């Protein structure tokens, strides 16, 4: 019954006119950037972070969360109609969704993508509400040793998500951790790696790093490619599903929802990996695997449900343990810290209205999305005709003004250009920036917990292996590393990323 009163509290927060408005704004912006290829939730959250400073933390988080799950709705539209993924998590939707559109069932594909996402979103909200309290209570029993090991586990998880070389991904984590060290050391007050620059005393700005690595760098690399989009010109008709399509797609929605909910919670999980896995499972378990890639509705329903479920359940580790499982949630963690809220088990008790408000807002946002998405598809499609050469200067302008407003100085803008250069170099060297951002967010917490654990154990590192929970996290991390390094699984993973 406590759950009901909690949800009631969340409902009160989420349906206040102001929060409803920001939920709508977030969901709409999310859909918009989901539709547009080349700009995803990570860049958008980075760009819009500064504009949320003036808002109360609840409204800011509700809006930013809306961007993440809204993008999962929007991404499918582009995949189906243009055969270009609007989002990385909608890559597999292209395979069957676009074929359906070519066969005149584009409307049905869009409907099942939206319906599947809605079912998944509702279910994931319940999962989030049910898991949050027990997990946070568990986290309260963690000492510094457990936290340190948990963060190691979380960081190793981000390696799974990165494509390409394992060593490079681990190196990117370390670079991120080191960047997180820049600034004043909390314990001793010493300035580290600041090169005597006063603006660096507070550390490298999260917004600068994120915008440089994702916003600016993506613009530069997009400009190097000269691709043309080919939009399906035929009129969209037939949004209703036939009875046969519904019967085929319903189990796929259920499977995708369950899978996505599970994968979203695990470190390294999230929308992208869930949609790939869901597609593979649908294809393997189908009685007609040869029909995949030729417009099988399960190939749309499964992944689209999975990515939305995962987008939402990935809030579980952030809000209960303080560990962001993927890069979008690392952005959310950064946003929370900027608003003065330390992500972790204390959020539920010290800030219940915020916690439950954000959770309930996800359900409200999903409801808004399903009501708005299908009627607005005409507008979204027209947006796709806006050429990139007009779009990217606008993104740059928003970046620069947002950066200035963080500290009302121009230093952050220059720093972002430098981070953009770093990001470009890393892109060329085939190093993924996602592990770097996770390392950056977790770095300071990780060091603090390491120091405290070692202080309590009087310098004996065996503390990490003698405490059962801590050992369990380290063993899990090791198993995960071995699993990623094994040739068989490696091939499977590479295949999933290239398919």
């Amino acid at each position: 019954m406590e759950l009901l009163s909690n949800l009631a509290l969340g409902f009160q927060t989420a349906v206040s006119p102001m929060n409803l408005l920001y939920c709508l704004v977030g969901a709409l912006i999310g859909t918009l950037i989901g539709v547009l290829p080349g700009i995803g939730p990570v860049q958008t959250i980075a760009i819009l972070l500064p504009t949320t400073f003036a808002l109360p933390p609840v409204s800011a988080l509700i809006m930013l969360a809306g961007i993440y799950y809204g993008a999962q709705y929007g991404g499918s539209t582009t995949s189906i109609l243009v055969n270009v993924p609007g989002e990385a998590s909608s890559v597999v939707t292209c395979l069957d969704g676009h074929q359906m559109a070519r066969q005149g069932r584009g409307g049905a594909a869009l409907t099942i993508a939206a319906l599947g996402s809605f079912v998944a979103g509702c279910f994931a909200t319940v999962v989030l509400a049910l898991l949050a309290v027990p997990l946070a209570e568990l986290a309260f029993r963690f000492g510094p040793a457990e936290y340190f090991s948990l963060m190691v586990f979380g960081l190793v998880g981000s390696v799974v998500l990165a494509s390409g070389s394992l060593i490079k991904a681990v190196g990117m984590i370390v670079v991120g951790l080191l960047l997180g060290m820049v600034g004043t050391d909390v314990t001793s007050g010493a300035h580290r790696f600041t090169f005597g620059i006063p603006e660096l005393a507070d550390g490298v700005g999260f917004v600068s790093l994120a915008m440089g690595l994702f916003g600016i760098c993506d613009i530069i690399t997009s400009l190097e490619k000269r691709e043309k989009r080919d939009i399906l010109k035929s009129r969209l008709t037939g949004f209703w599903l036939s009875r046969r399509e519904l019967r085929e797609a319903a189990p796929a929605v259920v499977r995708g929802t369950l899978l996505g909910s599970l994968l979203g919670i695990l470190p390294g999980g999230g929308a992208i990996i869930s949609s790939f896995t869901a597609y593979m499972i649908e294809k393997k378990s189908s009685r007609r695997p040869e029909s995949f890639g030729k417009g099988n509705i399960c190939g749309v329903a499964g992944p689209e449900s999975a990515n939305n479920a995962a987008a939402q359940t990935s809030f579980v580790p952030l809000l209960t343990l303080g560990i962001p499982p993927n890069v979008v949630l690392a952005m959310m963690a950064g946003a929370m810290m900027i608003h003065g809220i330390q992500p972790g088990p204390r959020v539920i008790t010290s800030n219940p209205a915020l916690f439950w408000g954000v959770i309930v807002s996800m359900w409200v946002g999903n409801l808004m999305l399903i009501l708005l998405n299908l009627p607005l598809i005409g507008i979204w499609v027209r947006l796709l005709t806006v050429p990139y050469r007009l779009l990217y200067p606008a993104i740059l302008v928003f970046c620069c003004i947002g950066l200035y407003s963080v500290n009302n100085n121009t230093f952050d803008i220059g720093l972002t250009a430098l981070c953009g250069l770093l990001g470009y170099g890393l892109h060329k060297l085939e190093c993924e920036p996602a592990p770097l951002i996770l390392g950056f967010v977790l770095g300071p917490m990780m060091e603090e917990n390491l120091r405290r654990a070692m202080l309590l154990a009087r310098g004996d590192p065996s503390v990490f292996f003698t405490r059962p929970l801590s050992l369990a996290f380290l063993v899990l991390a090791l198993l995960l590393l071995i699993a990623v390094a094994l040739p068989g699984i490696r091939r499977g993973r590479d295949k999933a990323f290239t398919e």
Partner: protein
Amino acid sequence: MRIRNPTDFLTGLLFLFFGAAAMLLSRGLTLGTAAKMGPGYFPFALGALLCALGGFLLARGVLSAAAGGWPSLQIKPLFVILSSVVLFSQILNPLGLLLSTALLVLLASAASHEFRWKEALINAAVLVGIVLTVFVYFLEFQIPVWPAPGGRGM
């Protein structure tokens, strides 16, 4: 010696550079002991780890059986986009938001291979309008809009 896999090799160099820099800079800080870590302890250890990873990648880049090509760079988008951002940061305070935004849009637009003067000018005008409405009028950002009198530079 032939470098068989240049991206591995270059990444190795980069990691070695970052790792060595971290170790060198940490030496100026108190290292402390394992029980009482100073501000230099964790960064020093991370630097050492990064150097090890870098060394491994360097060796793999030279010895690897999987040969790869050198990364291809395009200077124009990189240079134009980065310099437009740096330019904005330099001129915002003396020239104000209005002119800086317009210049940022015009310069950045030139990075595209589909650049057209007329289109870029219209885009700049539209974006200046949006920026003034959204950031100055609605969100009330504290940001200089007009050129500072007397050309006060920063």
